[in-house]
């Protein structure tokens, strides 16, 4: 039987109790683990990003014949040169800021990322990308396993989900990651009698109630452990709410989440992994690829504004060298458009790596040729076939950025020496 994410979390409830029972001396821990200030920001495009509209093969005639209404017009793409196979490629016209980052040498794109027998299910696909396991994708996430390697006891802010849920990718066996949704100013303690002395009594009593971890009722211990984690992280997160950015972030969810991430990095809270997501990529309909202010163009606009603002903020604060942003989505989309001005679920997609330390202005891998029958395609040439195993991207990040051995975390050697993006 398929184990759902919820069932997985339940299985981890017992282990949870143990990690919360240990006292946490936050600042010392942050220092001990802060030998490197490097951090990773995972950016998930929720819904299955249409990679062929992000990075456009604008000289491939079959791109236009198979997408009579949904192809990005060749005249509008932002040309960024050719890949190693000589395919000419261009960014979506709304990615103007990403083009500047590209020109700075801080953006690398890895084409045709995926895996054999790609799942076309959102949920299975996301689980596979999260666990880094294409066969058994019901366990811990690859970044949860990374966080599990940090010296114990782990800082409660070692991981940081800017969402209301903690994604499977950040779930480990030992480490629990807080969910600190936007706006972070909500992440505060309230009492019915205000914040004075009576409020202090309330907080003291609540912390005592949360310290109750009955071993025979692990579910209660789990919830109380979560309450402890909340109470233990409130004050540090409060500093992030007061962060003064060097640029003005947009009001959309992605921009606001990235603003909180910048605040956490600026305040040196010691967070190693951030999780940020933006949705709307399940473009079965109304993709309207060529409409300047609709559908997919809006998605690209949100992505471009959020990432560019964040990049500029970190650069201004002198923090660009410490941060690596890696973007993924659960699958690419069908090559031929579907008649609903959209595209259905496909296979191979693309990933981006952005940061001061990135070996950028490079296209890794080769684009698909969209002519039916071409070996870069699969599923009767309906979908793009993967070329670079997504786990080799993970391996590079673990080995060369986070500074841990990727093999035990990924349960195999997925190193690919050609992937020199970091």
């Amino acid at each position, binding site marked *: 039987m398929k184990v759902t994410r919820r069932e997985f979390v339940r299985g981890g409830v017992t282990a949870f109790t143990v990690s919360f029972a240990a006292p946490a001396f936050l600042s010392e821990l942050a220092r001990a683990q802060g030998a490197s200030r490097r951090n990773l920001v995972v950016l998930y495009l929720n819904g299955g990003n249409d990679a062929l509209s992000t990075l456009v093969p604008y000289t491939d005639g079959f791109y236009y014949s198979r997408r009579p209404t949904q192809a990005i017009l060749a005249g509008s793409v932002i040309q960024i040169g050719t890949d190693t196979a000589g395919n000419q490629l261009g960014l979506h016209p709304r990615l103007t800021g990403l083009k500047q980052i590209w020109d700075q040498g801080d953006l690398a794109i890895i084409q045709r990322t995926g895996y054999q027998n790609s799942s076309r299910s959102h949920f299975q696909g996301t689980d596979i990308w999260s666990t880094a396991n294409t066969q058994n994708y019901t366990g811990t996430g690859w970044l949860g396993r990374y966080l599990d390697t940090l010296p114990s006891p782990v800082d409660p802010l070692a991981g940081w989900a800017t969402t209301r849920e903690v994604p499977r990718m950040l779930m480990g066996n030992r480490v629990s990651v807080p969910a600190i949704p936007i706006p972070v100013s909500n992440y505060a303690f309230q009492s019915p009698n205000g914040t004075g002395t009576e409020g202090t009594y309330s907080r003291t009593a609540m912390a005592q109630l949360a310290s109750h971890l009955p071993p025979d009722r692990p579910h209660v211990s789990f919830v109380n452990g979560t*309450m402890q984690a909340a109470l233990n992280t409130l004050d540090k997160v409060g500093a992030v709410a007061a962060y003064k950015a060097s640029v003005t972030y947009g009001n959309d969810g992605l921009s606001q989440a990235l603003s909180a991430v910048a605040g956490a990095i600026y305040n040196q809270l010691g967070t190693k992994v951030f999780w940020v997501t933006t949705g709307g990529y399940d473009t079965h309909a109304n993709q309207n690829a060529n409409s300047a202010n609709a559908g997919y163009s809006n998605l690209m606009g949100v992505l471009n504004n959020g990432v560019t603002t964040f990049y500029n903020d970190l650069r201004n604060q002198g923090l660009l060298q410490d941060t690596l942003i890696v973007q993924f989505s659960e699958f690419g989309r069908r090559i031929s458009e579907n008649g609903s001005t959209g595209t259905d679920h496909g296979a191979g997609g693309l990933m981006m790596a952005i940061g001061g330390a990135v070996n950028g202005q490079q296209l890794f891998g080769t684009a698909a040729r969209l002519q039916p029958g071409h070996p870069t395609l699969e599923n009767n040439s309906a979908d793009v076939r993967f070329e670079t195993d997504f786990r080799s991207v993970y391996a590079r990040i673990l080995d060369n950025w986070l500074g841990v051995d990727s093999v035990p975390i990924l349960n195999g050697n997925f190193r690919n020496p050609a992937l020199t993006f970091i």
Partner: protein
Amino acid sequence: MAKPTPLMEHLLRRAGFGMTPAERDKWSRYPYSLAVLALTSFNPEKTDIDQYIGTPGYVGITTRGSFQPNSVINDARQRWLFRMVHSPAPLQEKMAFFWHHHFATAQSKIAGILGSSADATRTMAAKPQSDPAGAKGQIELFREMALPKFRDLLVAVAKDVAMLYWLDGYLNRRGQPQENFGRELMELFTFGVENYIETDVYAAARVFTGWNLVSTGTRGTPQGYWAFNYNANQHDTGVKEFSFAIYPDGSHRIEARSAAQGMQDGIDLINALAIHPETARRLARRLWVWFVSETDAPDADFVNQIADTYLKSDTDMRVVVRAVLLSSHFTNPSRYYQRYSWPGEFVARAMKEVGHIGFSVDTAIPAMLNMGQQLFEPPDVNGWDLGPSWFTTGGMLARMNFASQLAQNQRFALRDAARSSAGTPESLVTFVTERLSLPQLSGGERGTLTDYVRAGGAWTASDAQILNKAGGLAHLLTGSGEYQFV
């Protein structure tokens, strides 16, 4: 006041949203089996309490201009929360909530398609009796078909205006099949991801070609709306082949039939999925999680028995849910407080138990968003992540802070109710504890609470002390880990 048995409290937490003091009195007079019968026997035509919205004696709402629950999404949320607190048929609202998760549809995507939040709200929440076009929102469908034949519900959902927009069925045309609905029908609404292959998705998409919408009334006027329309011209009449049996004779093929008859393709596929044994078992597992326990995995005997009841009753959920509530797996005291409450359950129960006169359900809406549950806005078609997943640090803080807001609002009423029981810190703790449905507290937990009452000076049971501490205790207990379980 009579005191209900722990089993009755358990039943009303699971099949309802807890009990107000008056409801405790009412339900304590029922024998258990009669209570199950009463809870499962509602007539949806006679459970309407909307006329009490905004009247004294009920939880309040917050109006901005006028209250328009058929077209303003925040007002629709308020109306549903009002019903959760006050419905005389709590299981009707509970099952509507269950179906809202099972067929998870989000208003915002529809608003994006229609370019109108008001029209999208109508597709989700409009009450036909008060909508100018008689529009029936998806949640009203679920309330009307709260305990339906599941096969009938699947057909109704396949024709539902909100669903046709949500999973793009309105665009599904001959020669241009749209896979979204067909895939999720199999993966999420019926038998699950392990039971079909990719070509089944392509075939299912073709089955539902022509299941589209048509405009009714005059666009741009209140009478303008949409209706389901089987568009024979857009139906793919060819053979559809599946990897699983569609017909009782074991045939995997839906044979070619005329365009005029082609709607039967969809009915045949839905019927095959509805009575598939894996659908029966998947629903039984979901009902275990919803009603019985999240701390124990679904019991094999329970799943077999409930799946069997489902199939033998021709997918009748009234029969099935009754069997669940009467099963020894459900009634066993070891099942009490073994389910992680959904944010909607948590806020409704807190309002019923702590108090709600003078409180507005509107306060619960941003709080629920921070707890991870916005009504009419599940995160995706898979619904919400349940169980421990609700209990992130941010989600837990939001629960604690809602408890604080409610207690602050109710502290004068709590002071007045507690006054005669507040002689000692211990007696005040007992009073507030018994007002809520909670598992037995440990000595250590009681000690923490009495220490809290004593903190700040000798206890004299003055009105000022009771005001602070009765409200403070309601906050601590409702925000506690123990209270997060139903």
